[in-house]
């Protein structure tokens, strides 16, 4: 077992973990982050995407011990209590989900994209989401939602 300490959604977390424990299982099983989903469990689908020090990663392909000393943000960490992040609002407005299983990962991948590229083209949005699979929507409403969120965030910055 190894002692680790990290910041998860703004709060310091300390645990003793088996080195082979994956970050996704620490988040879901031990820290009740039910918004982090295990999809393919093989680094393809992106349902487990979280931010590690602000950049998107697939938490099924990161060991918990590798996140020791770092900052993890899950979908729960991007919204204030009762006040959705513009990406969450835009996903609802644009019907950018059906079953919803890919949605938290999509939102975290989109957040990474918009943090780096605040005003992306549709092509940049599609490339930014290339690590996330959705089997329901056909992606068009997801791209529209990220576009809407980018516009909302730009308006907030100006407002």
């Amino acid at each position, binding site marked *: 077992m190894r002692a680790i300490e990290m910041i998860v959604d703004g709060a310091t977390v300390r645990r003793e973990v088996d080195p082979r424990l994956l970050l996704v299982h620490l988040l879901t099983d031990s820290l009740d982050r039910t918004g982090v989903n295990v999809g393919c469990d093989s*680094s393809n689908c992106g349902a487990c995407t979280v931010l590690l020090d602000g950049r998107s990663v697939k938490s099924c392909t990161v060991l918990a011990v590798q996140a020791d000393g770092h900052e993890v943000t899950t979908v729960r960490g991007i919204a204030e209590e009762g006040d959705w992040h513009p990406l969450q609002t835009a996903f609802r407005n644009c019907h950018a989900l059906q079953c919803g299983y890919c949605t938290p990962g999509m939102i975290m991948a989109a957040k990474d994209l918009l943090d780096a590229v605040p005003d992306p083209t549709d092509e940049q949005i599609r490339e930014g989401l290339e690590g996330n699979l959705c089997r329901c929507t056909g992606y068009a409403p997801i791209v529209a939602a990220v576009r809407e969120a980018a516009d909302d965030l730009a308006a907030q910055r100006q407002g």
Partner: protein
Amino acid sequence: MFPAPFAYERAEDVDHVIALLHEHGDEAKVLAGGQSLLPLMKFRLATPAVVIDLGHLEHLHAVAARGGRVAVGAAATHQAVIDSPLLRERCGALAEVVRRIGDPQVRHRGTFGGALAHGDAAGDLPALARALDAEFVLASQKRRRRVAAADFFTGHLQTVLADDEVVLRVEVPDLTGWSFAYEKFAPVSHAWAVVGVVALVRRDGNRIADVRIGLTHMGDVPLRATAAEAALRGAEAGVEAVRSAAALAGRDTSPPSDDNADATYRRHLARVLTARALGRALDLTVPNLETM
């Protein structure tokens, strides 16, 4: 899926890595970004007894000028390579290829040295290293050595890296002023290359002064399209030269046949992608080469 149990060692510095590798040899695997190793461990295709984590070795992450070349630290992430102003200026082909690796999440974690040491025949970086004549700086308890890219790869997932050795950095030449393009054919955007072609060209007026063409997945190891390169050196930088050189791109290759493509189709792809890469690097409109 969980990896099999292993002992976890967090390396404090390079000497510590080398000492741990000396102690554990083939029982140990070095973990950098883990984007190749961890999936293998989860599928139990790799079951190292000891995992040596390089994640905290800051200076293995650095990208720096070194003796007229650029040294890319083995643990520099793909994203760091894309973002490096030094590489953009002196060896922009790195970012051109690296941005086609995996997807954003993989590029945030995966490392330049790790992907090369993995030696995947379908990986994007080995052919680039071949085309650049990159040099690998390897270290073990016994020695440090430099190995040319032409000698580093020995087969699919096989390199000359010994059980007790680690890649410290990879040095690439200063190719300021060269133009370049990478063409990758893959069934879906984040998949491995069925075939990939990276072309780098130095123009002198309307002549091609020098050219380097690397081929991905046209054999067990990355290859140079040497016949095509020879046809282009000194030629006029036009559509005719590109067409006739691209027709030679499959020569002296031994591409695999698998579920994605047989060897004949891979040779066809090599020709088509070479024409596209050269065309883009030279800013030419090359007609469709489907009939070549």
